[in-house]
C-alpha cells in the first residue's frame, strides 16, 4: 500500500525522530499554540456570525467587522495547521490510522470549503435571503465546532 510506505518514510525521517524525541514540554508548547490558534479561529467566526445575524454591531457596515475578523480567522488557522503538521510528522502512523484524526481532517476540509466558498463570499452579499444566510452561518459554525470536538477525541481513541 503506497500510503503506508509514505507514512513509514516520514516516520523514519530525521525530522520525525527529532519531533518524537523532543522534550514533552515542546509537545505541550505546540499544543498550547494549536489551542490558541483554534480559539482565535472559532472566536472570529463566531463574531462574524453574530454580525451577519444582526445580533452585534448592526450600526457598522459589514466590511468594517468582516475584514479584520477574516484576518484573525486565517491567522488562527495558520497557527493551528502549522503546529498540527509538526505533531503529525512526529507520529504519522499513529495519527493516520486514528479514526478521530481521519474524521477531523475530513471535517476540516469541509469547514474550510464552507468558510471560503460560502461564508466569506455569499454570506456577505446584501441581497441574500435571511434563511440562506442562517443556513450558511449555521453550517459553518457546526463544521468548525465539529473539527474541534473530533480533535479532542484523538487522544482518547
Amino acid at each position, binding site marked *: 500500500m503506497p500510503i503506508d510506505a509514505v507514512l513509514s518514510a516520514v516516520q523514519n525521517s530525521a525530522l520525525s525522530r527529532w519531533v518524537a524525541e523532543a522534550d*514533552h*514540554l515542546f*509537545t*505541550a508548547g505546540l*499544543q*498550547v499554540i494549536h*489551542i*490558541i490558534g*483554534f*480559539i*482565535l*479561529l*472559532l*472566536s*472570529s467566526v*463566531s*463574531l462574524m456570525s*453574530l454580525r451577519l445575524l444582526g*445580533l*452585534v*454591531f448592526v*450600526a*457598522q457596515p459589514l466590511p*468594517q*467587522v468582516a475584514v*479584520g*475578523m477574516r484576518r*484573525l480567522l486565517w491567522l488562527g488557522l495558520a497557527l493551528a495547521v502549522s503546529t498540527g503538521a509538526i505533531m503529525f510528522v512526529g507520529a504519522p502512523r499513529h495519527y493516520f490510522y486514528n479514526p478521530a484524526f481521519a474524521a477531523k481532517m475530513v471535517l476540516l476540509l469541509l469547514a474550510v470549503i464552507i468558510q471560503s466558498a460560502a461564508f466569506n463570499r455569499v454570506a456577505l452579499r446584501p441581497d441574500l435571503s435571511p434563511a440562506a444566510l442562517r443556513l450558511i452561518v449555521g453550517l459553518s459554525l457546526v463544521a468548525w*465546532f465539529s473539527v*474541534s*470536538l473530533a*480533535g*479532542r*477525541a484523538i*487522544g*482518547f481513541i
Partner: protein
Amino acid sequence: MSVYEWADAIEATSIGTAIAESRYAFPIIEGVHLIALSLSVGLIFITDLRLIGVALKEVPVIQVLQQLRVYLLTGFVVVFLTGGLLVWAEARAVVDSPATPFKFAFLLLAGINAAYFEFGVAKSPEILDSRETVLPRGARFAGYASLVLWTLVIIFGRLIAYIPHWT
C-alpha cells in the same frame, strides 16, 4: 480535611467516577470546555485587540464592551460548568499538578484586571464617549494585561496534563 482527602473524596462520588469511566463523557466535556473557551476567552481576546487598537478599530469601544458581554458571559458559564465537571472526575490529578496553582492564580489576576477595567477605566467619559481608534493609556494597558494573563491561564491549563507532579 486536607486538599488531597477532599480530592479523593469528590473523585470517588458517583458522578466523579461516572465521568472518569465513561468512554464518551470525558472527551465530550473537554471538547465543550474548549469550544466555550473560544466564546469566552476568544471574545475577550478580540475585545483586548480593540483596546490596544488592532482589531474592530471603527467600532466605538463602548459598543464592543456592551454588545459582546452577553455572549462572553454565556461562554464563561459553560467554561466554569464543564471545568467543574472535569475537576470532579480528576480531582486528585488536578490537585497534584504544580501547573494548577499557577492556572488559578493567573485566572484570579485576569478576573481582577477585568473587574478593574469594567468598573474603573471603562466608566470614565474618555471611554464611554470615545469614538477614537487609539484609546487612553489605562485602557490599552488593561488590554495588554488581559491578553498576557489569559494566555498564561491557557498555557498552565494545558500543562496540568504534562506536569503531573512537583518532583
